[in-house]
């Protein structure tokens, strides 16, 4: 009886099918469907004479629908959903990469024309030619480069010691559940969320109260940047100090070395590569801040290398004012904005690369 049922359900002339491999689409089905839908949507876009944005969106919609239908018919609904999600996730990633490439390419193309030696080495300004009675605007970013380096440098000088010492307190001295340690940890977290423009307003308020009105100065901008930089330094240094193996500290304590010497001679040298990396990334983060510097140091076209007196120009602010408050020669102002932006991006990228190289080259064994 059971044999009869068996022969009814399975035709003996057909080969035995493995239920685990039935109903599978070919391996690169996504690729085939993508090419197919690109051709279809390209055809539609050509016929209707539409924008290329229509082509992309239409192609993606056709692709998703076709894939869903194919997979539901050949496989199952569950697998269709799986394939759709996989595609959506990949699209999300491409959606993030596109702006990155587009931004960097735009800045490079727009800025490269203006970025030359005279842009870097001169202050720029208007030159009046008495013979032709014409005013020519020459672009220069020297004052902005000097301002950026001075303001960021002073901010780094103030934040790095405070940041490293705080992380040493958190990791080496405080007990984990101590109120002070928890308060500091929490407030550092909160401080990372302070809007940058609020930091600028704080610095301006502080110096308005101390110095009086019109208290624009490079140092004031440095204070604002420090407020933004300290939590980043604390966070990364803390993480690095926690990676130092406890055995090293214990060995040092066992030899009778004091806590202070252990930290200076054992813990810090072990973590130094990570700390430098964190500091570099923190500098790269604040060097591009525009709003706080714009509020606290204002802007100027004159050369001012004294951070304690008068407005200072910086690269990000030059990029901003070049677009928002251009001079009579709007094209020249915009060009200098792009030159400054490209210079800024180059500095940030170089800082990032150096940080990664340090992290990679000196990473302690076992942490990677």
């Amino acid at each position: 009886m059971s044999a009869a049922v068996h022969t009814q359900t399975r035709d003996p002339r057909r080969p035995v099918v493995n239920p685990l491999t039935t109903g599978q689409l070919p391996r690169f089905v996504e690729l085939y469907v993508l090419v197919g839908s690109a051709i279809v949507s390209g055809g539609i876009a050509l016929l209707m004479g539409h924008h290329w944005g229509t082509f992309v969106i239409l192609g993606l919609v056709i692709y998703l629908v076709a894939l869903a239908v194919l997979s539901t018919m050949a496989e199952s609904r569950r697998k269709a959903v799986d394939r759709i999600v996989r595609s959506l996730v990949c699209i999300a990633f491409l959606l993030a990469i596109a702006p990155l490439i587009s931004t960097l390419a735009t800045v490079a193309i727009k800025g490269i024309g203006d970025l030359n030696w005279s842009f870097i080495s001169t202050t720029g300004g208007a030159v009046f030619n008495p013979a032709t009675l014409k005013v020519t605007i020459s672009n220069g970013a020297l004052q902005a480069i000097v301002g950026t380096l001075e303001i960021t440098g002073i901010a780094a000088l103030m934040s790095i010691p405070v940041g490293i010492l705080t992380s040493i307190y958190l990791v080496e001295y405080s007990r984990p559940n101590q109120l002070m340690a928890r308060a500091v940890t929490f407030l550092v977290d909160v401080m990372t969320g302070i809007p940058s423009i609020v930091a600028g307003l704080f610095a301006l308020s502080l110096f308005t109260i101390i110095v009086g009105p019109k208290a624009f100065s490079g140092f004031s901008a440095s204070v604002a940047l420090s407020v933004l930089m300290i939590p980043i330094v604390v966070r990364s240094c803390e993480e690095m100090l926690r990676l130092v193996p406890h055995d090293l500290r214990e060995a040092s304590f066992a030899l009778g070395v004091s806590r202070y010497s252990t930290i200076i001679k054992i813990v810090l040298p072990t973590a130094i590569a990570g700390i430098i990396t964190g500091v570099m990334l923190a500098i790269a983060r604040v060097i591009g801040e525009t709003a706080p510097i714009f509020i606290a140091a204002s802007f100027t076209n004159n050369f001012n290398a004294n951070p304690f007196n008068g407005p200072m120009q910086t690269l990000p602010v030059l990029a901003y004012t070049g677009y928002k408050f251009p001079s009579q020669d709007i094209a020249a102002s915009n060009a200098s904005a792009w030159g400054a932006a490209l210079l800024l991006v180059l500095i940030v990228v170089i800082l990032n690369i150096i940080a990664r190289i340090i992290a990679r080259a000196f990473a302690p064994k076992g942490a990677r």
Partner: protein
Amino acid sequence: VSTNESGFRSSAEPFARSGAAGSDTTDPRTPRGAGSARAKVKSRPADRIFFGLSFGAATLILVILAAVALFLIIQAIPAIVASWQHNPDLSSGPTAGYSNFWSYVGPLIWGTLFVSAIALIIGAPIAIGIALFISHYAPRRLAGILGYLIDLLAAVPSIVFGLWGIIVIRPLLLPLTTFLNHNLGWFPLFGGAASTTGSTILAGAVVLAVMILPIISSISREIFLQTPRLHEEAALALGATKWEMIKMAVLPYARSGVVSATLLGLGRALGETMAIALIISPSIQISWRILTESQNSQTIAANIALNFQVANGLQREALIGTGLMLFVISLGVNILARFIIGRTGPGTGSKRKTKPARPSVAATSAPIESAALSMAIIDQPEGAQS
């Protein structure tokens, strides 16, 4: 080494601490904390000075945060309590036409929240998708590099995004703006006269969304990677597809972490200045429309940036007052995010025991624990430590 650029405290650490605290009493090996070591080691002057320095630095952080609030309040109070109609400063210039501080700051708060919310609606799903892609879909070998590419987005200065938005995003979104306005104009968001230059809230929000992508995705990614490997493998062994595995094992585990990552992204969007100031053509009003020009709601930060240099005296103090409001709002959002991750973060309750730990946890835990944890680390996907 995971250098978290967003400055976010990964959820593993609070538990690492509580773990170390628990072992303090039972494990004499742990020399953490000043008390136990100090009792045995002779206290030297250099030691006390160094402790004083580091304690002072930690105290300085409390002082700075208090000072930020204090100085903003001191500067803002005169404008907040002033009578705006009768004051010669406040009844002219950028602050003209408002009866008091609150009627000035109200529409600005609305604009800030509105623009950030739209940016979040656009950006958060993409960011979570990216995090899933890097943690679960991308080839293992590529995951580290792809994650670094996304982090690079965070390194691009905001002013550069602003300039990029002006010349790339505005023209790019113009066809979409006209399309939405023509076909869906009855919907309040898309109503009004469509912009012809592209200086719309939509364009600003798209740029803002790009800027908050890296923070949301890097935090979500770390949390997705902390999902217990065994949960994932159990789901796969039961025949789940990859998406079903993610839906059943990864997302429930990471839900609160993703929520707080989104809130931190919101915090970033609230304070963003330059992109908005450069792109959106604003007016101070409460409006739902995102496709219009010169009738867009204005944000606090952009309003300060645009008016600060022309403002004088009390007007400037009024702007500082709006900055104080921004400070309070973003402080609230950040505290809420930290609270969520602290209270209901992954690894609470029974999950704590099975949670794969990061190397830092292993370094501070008791020996037996760390043996188990190092096994968990071997289990962990490569991307977790890169």
